[in-house]
């Protein structure tokens, strides 16, 4: 950002005795604090009412038998919801699907985005076009993305089946409705949507690596592969750690895309935990039970993430 230069007159020396300056500094600090509070308060208010309070209530709900009805009566039932949840096979199956989805989308995103970022960092033609293309999936409404991919995967008039048929492969696969292909098909869409942001972040990281490092490494006779492993990867490490953590959480929490693509079908094969919880709350109307599911999901994500970040940190230290 360019900032106009302003010539600044030298501040005149301020004569003052120590004591009055101290007192003045105290009241100034206080006034500043009050000012800061006044500036922040307006945005604190909606956040408190519409996101902190609901979070607290949500955790409390998990210990009640609340139902989504006009005149609800809640009773605290202790940990009963959680005990029931332990024996709920459908929930844990959905949980497993959620993990498969989040882990595979996150990993594939990272690999695909790394490749694209390296290409964009290299001096190639068509870079501008690719950069714009790489941003579009990020900008599009998830509903439109889902509608678009439903057309691609369409069993009769879809280009995917047509393409496969043209090269002599089976061309009658109903990608989103077949038990074995639904989850992988949905994962591909997840990668398509999430790749741009990861690419942009990695690219920003790549551009921060000083060129001398690469030059020095090639002087020492390191090939491209070797340079990638001993210069690029270590420099990108903090960025990779943060973006994979964020991607994992975003993917685990994702809802809209798969809801519009498959609504969790066929036969629950793409029933991500968020969809499962949503249906329990707003179709079966058991919001206490659904809240307990939400709590379990949050706790698991936090535990997994802490473990991951901790291991990354330890590895960093041992270097």
């Amino acid at each position, binding site marked *: 950002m360019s900032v106009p230069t302003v010539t600044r007159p030298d501040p005149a020396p301020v004569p003052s005795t120590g004591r009055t300056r101290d007192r003045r500094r105290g009241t100034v600090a206080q006034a500043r604090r009050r000012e800061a509070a006044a500036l922040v308060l307006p945005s604190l208010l909606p*956040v408190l009412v519409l996101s902190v309070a609901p979070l607290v209530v949500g955790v409390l709900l998990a210990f009640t038998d609340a139902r989504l009805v006009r005149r609800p009566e809640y009773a605290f039932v202790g940990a009963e919801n959680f005990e029931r949840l332990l024996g709920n096979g459908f929930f844990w199956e959905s949980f497993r699907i959620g993990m498969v989805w989040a882990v595979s989308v996150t990993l594939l995103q990272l690999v695909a985005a790394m490749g694209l970022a390296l290409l964009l960092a290299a001096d190639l033609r068509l870079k501008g076009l690719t950069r714009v293309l790489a941003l579009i999936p990020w900008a599009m409404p998830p509903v439109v993305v889902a509608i678009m991919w439903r057309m691609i995967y369409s069993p009769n008039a879809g280009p995917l089946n047509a393409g496969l048929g043209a090269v002599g492969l089976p061309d009658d696969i109903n990608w989103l409705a077949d038990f074995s292909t639904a989850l992988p098909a949905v994962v591909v869409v997840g990668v398509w949507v999430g790749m741009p942001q990861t690419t942009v972040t990695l690219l920003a990281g790549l551009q921060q690596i000083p060129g001398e490092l690469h030059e020095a490494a090639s002087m020492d006779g390191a090939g491209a592969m070797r340079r990638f492993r001993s210069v690029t990867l270590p420099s990108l490490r903090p960025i990779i750690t943060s973006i994979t953590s964020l991607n994992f959480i975003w993917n685990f*929490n994702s809802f809209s895309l798969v*809801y519009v693509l498959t609504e969790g079908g066929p036969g629950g094969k793409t029933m991500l935990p968020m969809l499962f919880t949503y249906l329990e709350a707003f179709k079966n109307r058991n919001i206490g039970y659904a809240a307990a599911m939400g709590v379990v999901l949050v706790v698991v994500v936090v535990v997994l993430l802490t473990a991951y970040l901790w291991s990354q940190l330890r590895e960093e230290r041992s270097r």
Partner: protein
Amino acid sequence: MRALVRPAQYLALAAYIAFLGFPLLWLVSASLKSSAELNSLTVSLIPQDVRWDNFGQALERQGLVRSASNSLVVALVSTALVVLLALPAAYALARFRGALRALGTGWILVSQVFPVILVILPLFLILRTVGLTDSLLGLTLVHTTYTLPFALWMLQGYVAAIPTDLEEAGAMDGANRASVLRRIVFPLLMPGVVATAMFSFVSSWNEFFFALVLLQSPENYTLPITLKMFIGGEGKVALGPLAAGSVLAAIPSIVFFSIMQKRLTGGLLSGAVKG
């Protein structure tokens, strides 16, 4: 070996372009095809003859224009609110060190990993008690609240980039605080405000989950919900108008994102990485 690197790179780049771009091309092409061609078994990327009547049909459809205007109102009002609320708070966050800043930044980071599914249940109950479910006002407030943290994060980065010297210089020249902010800080902050506003608009325009849960009557639906109902409702989907409606719904977001392209390059992590 060396001579093979460039062609291999271009091959890979072409594969990426195809993967990223083909679905978009297909959607646009479907929006231009006649329904006869869409239902026939010949599959081709290039329409036999280009027709615009899908767009006409999509717009004539009950609800599409109405829900587009709902989306527009919600997005514009929540964008205005986000900017109004975030501007002073971003200034405070960037300029005052200490507990406030730590708390603010902490909350912004937590908000990125916020378990929306856990929050939506009480949020629904809270909004229902004050009669704001199935209401565009309720949805606007929710969009504002959930866009605010990231908008704050973006904006405070822009504030931090303005050297404090400039403000001090203004104060030296005898300007009071309000006029320092108005004459020096705000003009420099404009690009940041514009970027933040576009980000907020796109977030609200694209948002699906809150709208799905909170809105019940079709006259209140936002565009994403109406498009989703197009698929489910009619058994056999009218593909052409659906594709046309989708193209129209994606245009505002894509335009804004292309304008913001340069500013997005740093992305969410730029502040975190540079410290």
